[in-house]
C-alpha cells in the first residue's frame, strides 16, 4: 500500500482551492465531482465542467441525476455549464485565460463564485507533460486572485503515480471523497478500489448507529453491484477498538448478506480484535469472511 498524503475532502474546499483528484474508478470521480458541484449549487456558485470531449451538457452532467439534481433545469438557469474547450487539441494552452474569464463572468452574472472541474486526457498532456505542467502553473495566479475553486481530474488508470506526484505539487494538494462519518473516536470513509468502507478509530456504544447507517448504505451499494457477487467490504485496518455491540452489528449484516447469497468481507482486522471475535464465536458466522492477516485489501 502506498502512503497517501493527507487529503482535503471535497466538503472542506474553500475559495482559491486548486486541488488534484487522482481517481481509480468512474464511481470515485462521479462521487467527488457530484459533491463538488452540488455544494456549489447550495452555495450560490456556478458550476463549470470542462470535459475532455465535446458532448452536450445534459449528457456530461447526467451522473448528477442520481444525486437528485434536476440537471436540465440547472443548465437552463445557467447554474451548471459544460464547455468543450478541453476537447480540442490546443485546449490546454489558454486554460488559465478561460478560467479567468469564466470566473469574472460568473460574478458578473450574480454568482458568488465559480466551481470548475477539468478533466485532462492523456492525449492533451503533451510531450513529457511539459504543456500540462506549464498550464497548471499558470492556473495558480487565477485561483489566488478570483473567487474560483477547482478540481483537476486525472484518471489513475492512465496516469501513473510517478507522473501524478509532480503534477500534484502544482496544486494546493489532493482532494478525496467526503467522509461518511467523523466524530472524536471514529472516521468512516468510502473506498473505491475495492469498493467498500474504511473505518478508523474506535467503535463503541456512542457511534454504533453511525456504523449501522453507513453499513446499510454500503449493503445497498453491494446489492446494486452484482457483477462479482454481493460483497460488502470493510477495511478495519485503522480500527483499534470495537465492542460487542458493534461486532453484533457486523454479524447481523453478514447473516443478512449471506441470505442474499453474499458476504461481508473484513480486512485489516487487528489480532486482538480477531481474538475477541473468536472468543465470541463470531469468526465462523455464515457470510462473514475475515481476510487473513497481511493479505492485501
Amino acid at each position, binding site marked *: 500500500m502506498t502512503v497517501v498524503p493527507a487529503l482535503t475532502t471535497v466538503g472542506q474546499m474553500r475559495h482559491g482551492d486548486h486541488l488534484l483528484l487522482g481517481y481509480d474508478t468512474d464511481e470515485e470521480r462521479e462521487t467527488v465531482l457530484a459533491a463538488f458541484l452540488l455544494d456549489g449549487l447550495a452555495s450560490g456558485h456556478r458550476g463549470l465542467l470542462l470535459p475532455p470531449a465535446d458532448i452536450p451538457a445534459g449528457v456530461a452532467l447526467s451522473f448528477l441525476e442520481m444525486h437528485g439534481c434536476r440537471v436540465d433545469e440547472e443548465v437552463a438557469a445557467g447554474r451548471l455549464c459544460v464547455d468543450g474547450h478541453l476537447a480540442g487539441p490546443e485546449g490546454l494552452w489558454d486554460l488559465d485565460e478561460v478560467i479567468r474569464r469564466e470566473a469574472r463572468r460568473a460574478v458578473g452574472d450574480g454568482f458568488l463564485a465559480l466551481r470548475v472541474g477539468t478533466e485532462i486526457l492523456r492525449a492533451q498532456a503533451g510531450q513529457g507533460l511539459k504543456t500540462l505542467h506549464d498550464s497548471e502553473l499558470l492556473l495558480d495566479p487565477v485561483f489566488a486572485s478570483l473567487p474560483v475553486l477547482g478540481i483537476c481530474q486525472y484518471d489513475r488508470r492512465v496516469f501513473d503515480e510517478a507522473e501524478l506526484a509532480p503534477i500534484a505539487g502544482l496544486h494546493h494538494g489532493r482532494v478525496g471523497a467526503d467522509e461518511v462519518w467523523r466524530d*472524536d*473516536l471514529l472516521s468512516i470513509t468510502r473506498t473505491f478500489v475495492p469498493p467498500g468502507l474504511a473505518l478508523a478509530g*474506535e467503535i*463503541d*456504544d*456512542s457511534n454504533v448507529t453511525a456504523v449501522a447507517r453507513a453499513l446499510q448504505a454500503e449493503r445497498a451499494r453491494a446489492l446494486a453491484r452484482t457483477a462479482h457477487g454481493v460483497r460488502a467490504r470493510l477495511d478495519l485496518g485503522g480500527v483499534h*477498538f470495537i*465492542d*460487542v*455491540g458493534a*461486532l*453484533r452489528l457486523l*454479524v447481523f449484516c453478514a*447473516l443478512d448478506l449471506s441470505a442474499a447469497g453474499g458476504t461481508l468481507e473484513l480486512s485489516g482486522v487487528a489480532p*486482538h480484535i480477531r*481474538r*475477541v471475535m*473468536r*472468543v*465470541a*464465536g*463470531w469468526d465462523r*458466522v455464515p457470510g462473514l469472511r475475515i481476510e487473513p492477516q497481511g493479505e492485501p485489501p
Partner: protein
Amino acid sequence: MTRTGFVHQALCYGSDQEFLTGTADFLRDGLDAGDVVLAVLSGHHIALLTEELGSKARDVEFADSRDWYDYPSRTLGRYHAYCRRQDKGRRVRVVGEPVWTGRTEFETQEWMRYESLVNVAFAASDHWLLCPYDTRTLTANVLATARRTHPELALGARSSEPSGDYADPADFSAQVTAERRPDPLPAGPDDIRFCRGRSAAVRRALAGYARRHGMSAQRTYDMVAAVHEAVVNAVRYGGGQGVVRLRSDPEHLVCEIRDAGAHASVPRPGFPGHLPPDARAAGGHGLWLVRQLSDLVAEDLDPAGSVLRLYFRRSGAVQPAAGSVNS
C-alpha cells in the same frame, strides 16, 4: 457400553492401577464406537495411558491439563470451541482431570462451579465426560463436591451409579456466587466515574493504569475490552452511571465496576456469562466475553446496584525489581 445423551461422571481413584482401570477401557470403547476421543491429563497420566493403550494411543488426542485447565471460564470456552470444531453427529468422549493443587480457595470454588456448569453447557449434546478425582491428594471438600457436581459416579470403566448428592447446577452456582459476593472496594485515587457516552474516557484511563502497572499490551487489550462491556452493561441495566475502581496487588490487577442500580427488577440471567451464547442470540455476549477475557470474576448482580469484580493476573509470578523494564 452404549449410552445416549450427555453423560458426566466422576471417577474416584486411589492408585495408578485404579486410574488405568477406570479410563483405558473408556477410551478404547470410544475409539471402537467412532467417537472423537480427548484426554486432558497430567504428563504422568498421559504417559501411563499411552503405554497401556499401545498403538491405539495414536487415535487419542492428548492435552496437558496445566495448559487446558488454566481459568474456569476459558476452559469452558475451550471445550465449547473444541466440540464445535468436530463433525456434527460425532460424540466427543473426554477424560478430563482439572488441576486442583496449588489453587487458592477462590479458584477452587470457581473450579467446582465449573464442574457443575458443564452439566448445563453440554446438556443438549451427546458428549461423554469422565472426570478422575485422586482420593489420595484431594481434600475431603473437593471429593465431596465432586458428588454434588457429577450426576453419576463411575465404577470402573463400564459401570456407574447415580450420585445421591447431585445438586441442581442453578442452585449450586447460586451458592458459589453467594460465597463469592465481593465487599465493595473503598474509594481510591484511581476511581473512574462513568455515565452514558463516557465509555471511551474509561478505556483511556484504564489503558493508562494498566500501562503504569506493567501490564502487557495483549492483557491490556483484554482488560479494556472486558471492563468496557461491564461498563456498557452498567449504563444500560444499572441506572446509567457508576464507578470503576482499580487496585493492584502482587498477583492481580483488580477492576471493580459498580453501578447505582436501575431500581427496576430486570430478570436475572440464570448463569450470567457462564454459558456460551448462540452467535445470533440477542444478548449474553458481553458478560460471556468479560469472563473469557478476565482470569477470575466475582459478582453481585442486583437490580438495586451491581458489583462486578474482574481479576487479571499480572504477567509472571515474580515481581520485577523497582525501575526494571517490564516487557
